[in-house]
Every structure is written in C-alpha cells, then in structure tokens.
C-alpha cells in the first residue's frame, strides 16, 4: 500500500512542476483540479486501515468542490475574459522550472527539521506538501495575469490541505469544512472580480493595475 502512496506523492510533486511549466490557463485549471483528486486519493490511501464516514464525506466534498465546481467557475472566467495564455510572465518558463527545482530541494531540507507524528504516511509527503505551498506562492509572485494568480492561490491551498493531512490528521471536521468554504467563497469572489476588471480595463494584468 505504501508504494501506491509514494507514487501518488511523486505525482503531486510532478503536477507542481507541470503547473509551473505551462502557459495555457486551461491546462493550469486542469492541473490544479487533478492535484485535488491526487490529494483526496492520498488522504484515503493513508487511512485505509481506519476509514470512517467523516473522512469519506470530507473527501467527497473536497473532490466535488475543488475538482468540479471551482474549475468550472474559473473556466467560465477564463472564457469570459478571453485570455487563453500567460504570454509574458515575470519569470520565464524554463527559469520557473529551475526555480521549482530549487524550491523542491528547499522543502526537502526544511522537512528534515520537522517530524511527522503519523508514522504510517509516506516519507515524502511532508516535503511534497511544503513544495506545493511554495509552488503556489511562486506562481502568485511570478505571473502577471489575475487568473493565473488565483491558480497559485489554489495550489497553495492544496498544499495547506496536504500539510494538514500529514500533520494534523485528527483535526475537527468543522475546521476542514470551513476551510473549504473559505476557499470556495474566495475563488468565487476572485472570479467575479477578475471578470469585472477585464470588462473595465480590457485586460487582467495585475502589473498594470498597480501603477
């Protein structure tokens, strides 16, 4: 069972690199949705010995929200604004990949100093979740388009969820649900805001908004 868990975690790491590497917004949206599915699979796999209703309900809600509803919202925003690709980011794509490599090394280093209370989990899970958080932050910094930045925010949230699974397994149901609700509302509001920005200014470059 542990092998499958390790493989899923490796997939999570690789999906972050794909997210950093792609310029098409639609693929970004798809990758973040796939990340949410991978995370749910990890959560289920790591608790196979003690599955309870609470966890299953949470996983179902997570998948429904992060892999179905939110991508749909973001797809509508993307189509509505007519922006298909992030053409001139602050940090180019090859350079982003290398930065991603550096971030991965950093998160493995950092996780050396942290100990996981749950021994059953994959050894790479903690660094992988840190790496997902870092990737999200990096995308928020390195990209110009507002939609891509929302993508970074969602990747970061995925990372925080993964971090939660790896460290605090037994956090109360209500906390996880309310975090999910937060994300849902945030993405919804950002989607509406981006839509209005693009109507008002004919672009969604946050770089030009700040002048």
């Amino acid at each position, binding site marked *: 069972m542990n*092998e499958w868990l*390790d*493989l899923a*975690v*490796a997939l999570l*790491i*690789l999906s972050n*690199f794909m997210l950093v*590497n792609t310029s098409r917004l639609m693929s970004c949206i798809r990758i973040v949705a796939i990340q949410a599915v991978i995370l749910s699979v990890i959560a289920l796999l790591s608790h196979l010995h003690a599955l309870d209703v609470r966890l299953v309900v949470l996983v179902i809600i997570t998948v429904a929200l992060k892999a179905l509803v939110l991508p749909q919202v973001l797809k509508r925003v993307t189509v509505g604004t007519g922006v298909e690709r992030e053409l001139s980011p602050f940090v180019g*794509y*090859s350079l982003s*990949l*290398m930065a*991603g*490599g550096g971030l*991965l*090394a950093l998160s*493995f280093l950092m996780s050396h100093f942290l100990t996981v209370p749950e021994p059953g989990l994959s*050894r*790479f899970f903690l660094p992988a979740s840190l790496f997902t958080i870092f990737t999200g932050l990096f995308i928020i910094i390195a990209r110009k388009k507002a939609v891509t930045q929302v993508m970074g925010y969602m990747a970061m949230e995925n990372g925080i969820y993964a971090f939660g699974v790896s460290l605090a397994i037994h956090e109360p149901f209500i906390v996880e649900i309310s975090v999910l609700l937060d994300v849902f509302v945030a993405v919804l509001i950002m989607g509406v805001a981006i839509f209005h920005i693009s109507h008002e200014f004919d672009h969604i470059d946050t770089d030009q908004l700040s002048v």
Partner: protein
Amino acid sequence: MNHPPYIHVAVSLAAAPFLFGVINKVKAGFAGRKGPPLFQMYYDIVKLMRKGAVYSRTTTEMFRLSPLVSVAVGILAVMTVPLGQTESLISFHGDIFLLAYLFGMARFTTVLAAMDTGSAFEGMGASREVQFSMLAEPAFLVGLAALSLLTGESSVAGILSALRNGTGTATGHVVIPICVASLFIVLLAENSRIPVDDPNTHLELTMIHEVMVLDHGGMDLGFIHYGSALKLWVFASIIARILVPVKMSSPMLDAALATASLLAVTVAVGVVESTMARLRMLRVPQLLTGATILSLVALIIAMR
C-alpha cells in the same frame, strides 16, 4: 555467468543499425505506407562504404577524424553497457561518467568538424547542437546519479545488475519510473529524434544534427550513420534493462526478453515520432530543462 560478455558486444555491433529499420517501419505503419525494408540502414552503410570521400580544401585533419571518433566512441559505449542480463565487457567504478562524456567527446569532434568546413550553415547547426546537448547532459548525468544513489553502485553494469537483484529499492518504485521518463527524453534529444530534431528533414530552419554532417560523404558518412546507430542502441538498451530487470531461468529466455524489451523501447520511439510534432526551436530548451528537473526529483527522492 551465462555466456562470455564479448558475445553481446558482437551482437550489438552487428544489430545496432536494425533499430533504425524498426523505427522507420513503425513510422511508415502509422502513415499507412509500406516503408523502407528493415535492413535499409545496412544497405545504406554498405553503399557508402564502397564510395570514396570528397574533401574540401578548406578542411583539415579534424574533419576526417570526427567520423572515426564517433564510431570508436559508439563501440566503447557498447562495451560498457550490458545487454539484457549479460555482464558488460568493461566495467569499473564511476564509468557512468565515462559513458556520458564519451558521447560528449564524439559531439565535440563533430562540432569541430562542422566548424572546420567554414560553412556558416554548419556553424549554426553546431551552435544548436551544443546548446541543446548542454541541457540534455545534466538530465542524463543526474538521472544516472539518482540510480547510482538508489543502488549504491557507480558503474553502469553495477547499477543495472543491482536493480535486477532488487537491492536498495526502498524508494525504487518512485525513482525508477521518473528516471526512465527522463532518460527517454534524453534518448530522443541525444539521438536527434522527433520532438527535438527531425532526422528526415533537410529544411534549413529546423535542422540540428543533419546540418553538421552535410559535408561528409562516402565512407565518412557511413561511419557517422553507424556511430549514431550504436548510440541509439546504447541508450535504448539502458532504458530497456531498467524497465525489465527480470532474470529468467535460462540464458536463451534472457536473450529473448532482452531483445523484446529493446524492440519495445524502439517501437516507443517510433510511436512518439509518429504521434508528435517536432517542437518549436524555442520550446526545446524547456523540454530538456523538464527532463533535468525529472532527474533532479528522482535524485532528491533517492536521497531520502
């Protein structure tokens, strides 16, 4: 020990050009053509060997040396890499670096020979070749380093036989697939196959490797073709062996399995070539950086 290692070297030297025939058959199959015969590469090489070469007056010894170096490097590389479950003829600690830089040396002489002709066109090809190989080399080396760290061996044959015996594979199920993906991209790039370079094209805008050998003819060109066949054979047999590390009960079964896995890798190359378009020149560095990153991920995971 099933049979002496020089048998597999002899087989490799004889059968290497066959792989190109397989790739071309697969491509022809996808296109709905009959395609050239499986042994076309042999006919080509024999034909070229019977011809004399024409040398430009501007070229020096370097130009004549480079085809010989590429064949010599190919032969040496075949000796360091075992085929199937055989032992390799040459094996010592750290020969993964030998393997990587043998090909580096062959490339260096090819580039020098291309510059030697004084043609601006070949200089352009040389510049591209060097740029892309600079990105492919770390992917190859770091990928091998990850496998080396995983198995605790530092020779190609040692790594491959440790994978067979299953030692040190605590994280193997994660590291090996990632390494294979990375090495496959390196195979495509190093052998100038399609997502990076198109071996068939003679369109100047897209040529990389083909450009550099334009001025070679006759015997020299035959040597270059043979050298590239050996190179493809070496890369394909490394990947095949990593993918299928099984040892069967009899040497005959081993040989059959090795051949089958080698053919499978070759067919995969053909399928990639038929289903993908060549990448834009600007996108190639991104692909190769991606391969390096894959190797890096494998290395970091292997460290844990």
